[in-house]
């Protein structure tokens, strides 16, 4: 019997504003279609974070919940233990900023982040709202990112984090790069259900968690690929 992939959704009570459940559902679907069993664990902010998860997910949130989440995760230590063990961490938007050493909290006062990625974030001049397209680091072997961003963050990476992608449309980190990764910890400004439009990224996370993946039957991917193509075509036409 195969060990299930343990998907741990971290603090949906604090960090879930933009359809973040989509990432959980897509990972679950793409694993099950391959015959891989999945166990889903939702951890609220008043519960301990389990240390034995395979993939940890964090979503978006407003400034106050983001600050509270940082404080609790630092005190809890579960996510740090899991990451040190080599578990996969995937975070979007506010969750992404949390992964760094510092981010801008309420009124942009600096708040200590989790320090799982070598980067710091603050507030930019303008809110970045709209479609984003970015080309992923070739080392990761994932297709173009397409998504929606809605944030006012600016993120600068240190030498120990690599940019996830280079933006060809949209703002991302604010310096032509988008997202960051280091080992199996990966974050992006593509908010909410980022994995829905980027099934390649979903498969990368599954691969990191459980090794080489069997092919999906093509009809299982047909709609997702159509939707992805429609989005990419819509932004290149506009």
């Amino acid at each position, binding site marked *: 019997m195969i060990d299930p992939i343990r998907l741990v959704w971290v603090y*949906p*009570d*604090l960090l*879930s*504003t*933009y*359809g*973040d*459940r*989509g990432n959980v*559902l*897509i990972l679950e*679907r793409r694993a099950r279609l391959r015959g891989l069993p999945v166990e889903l664990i939702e951890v*609220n*902010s*008043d519960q301990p974070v389990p240390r034995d998860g395979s993939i940890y997910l964090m979503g978006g949130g*407003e400034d*106050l*919940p983001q600050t*509270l989440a940082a404080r609790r995760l630092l005190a809890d230590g579960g996510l740090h233990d899991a990451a040190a063990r080599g578990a996969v961490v995937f975070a979007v938007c506010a969750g992404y900023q949390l992964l760094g050493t510092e981010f801008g909290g309420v009124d942009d006062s600096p708040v200590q982040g989790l320090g799982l990625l070598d980067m710091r974030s603050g507030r930019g001049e303008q809110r970045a*709202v*709209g*479609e984003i397209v970015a080309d992923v680091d070739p080392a990761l072997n994932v297709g173009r990112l397409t998504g*929606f961003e*809605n944030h006012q963050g600016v993120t600068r990476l240190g030498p120990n984090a690599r940019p996830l992608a280079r933006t060809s449309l949209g703002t991302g980190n604010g310096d032509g790069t988008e997202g960051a990764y280091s080992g199996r910890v990966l974050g992006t400004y593509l*908010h*909410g*259900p980022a994995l*829905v439009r980027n099934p390649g990224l979903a498969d990368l996370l599954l691969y990191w968690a459980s090794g080489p993946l069997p092919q999906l039957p093509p009809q299982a991917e047909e*709609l*997702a690929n*159509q*939707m992805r193509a*429609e989005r990419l075509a819509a932004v290149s036409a506009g």
Partner: protein
Amino acid sequence: MDDNTHHRSRLPMRARVATTVGGAAATVSRIAGKGDGSVIGGIIGLRLAPDLLSLLATGREIVLVTGTNGKTTTTKLITAALAPLGGEIASNIYGANMEAGLTSALSRAPGARVAVLETDEKYIPSMVKATRPRVVTLLNLSRDQMDRAAEIWLLARRWRDALAAAPDCRVVANADDPLVAWAASSARQVTWVAAGQRWREDSWCCPHCGAHLLRDGDDWSCRECGHRRPPVSWILQGDDVIDPAGRATRLDLALPGRANRSNAVIALAVAEAFGVHLTQALAELRGVTSVAGRYTQVNRRGCDIRLLLAKNPAGWLEALDVMAPPPVPILLSVNAQGPDGRDTSWLWDVDFRRLRGRHVLVGGERRLDLAVRLEADAVPFRLISNIDEAVDVALTVAPKLEVLANYTAFQQYRVALGRVQ
């Protein structure tokens, strides 16, 4: 000499000119077929007299109605409930709910002593200041069109500050929504209504201190800071309203669904603040059958179509609750134009699993987004490209069709069905 002339003559000259010119512009806009003209009329009036709204509000008893969902319907219900007062009631029933829309509603009804005004959530602070309302009604607060709306905790904080600065205003607020209750608790006079909260994904944490809230049915409290659900005087209980004296009365509305029963109880609480008795007000509420085209029944080639509009996850959740039972097919339709919000991420916050086993049709400009969403919830569906294709399918299973659409998708179907001139 009627009331109309009377109220106008009390306005300063430049306000009179501004309302006249604004009114003329609205008429031109209507004739040109550019909507009902309320926004352009208001904009021109405000150009000529920036304090026009305050001037027009002076001497009137104003009710502002806000919340993420149910604003338009509740505005219509409150207007109906206040009819027993007699006399004209000013209102912006077509949903023009920012400064220009409110200005236009008041300038079109110079004789109205009472005004019931739907107000965009973001505009509450400035509109409370400008109109000095007698009552502010706070319905609910949840995620909505996040690419253009402010974040909701920030909104609640702004409401809270605005109400603290308006001591003469009575607030009628939903005590079951923790974010609303936190905003309203800064006001000096509050009528608390247990209006229910179906959507809870935005209120798991205490708005005051951020701790995870304890919840027991509709009750909620924070064990960290002690912030808790206030004691209520009006209650929605199933199909009944319980009034402050503890008497239960069956609502029996023509409008469907829990959300509308909730809106109705709030309307009754507002009516009471104006001295209108429950039985009189309720009789008026029962006469409301459709609100700006919503809940309308249309017949197309022998198929009865009902149109429901919902714009965000909380609204979709409530709308899915009122769907006719199988085998009636359901057409879901989503666009992502400006007024809808250009981001469809919210679809992933709606649980569609309850549609498994039903005839589901999927339309709208972003039907692929919806299709992928339904696929993830293992809900079989069929893609359609226009309302007639949906009617064709509906006629093979039941001569009925339920349509649930977001804003511009809903308007497109209304046009296609000949419900808009």
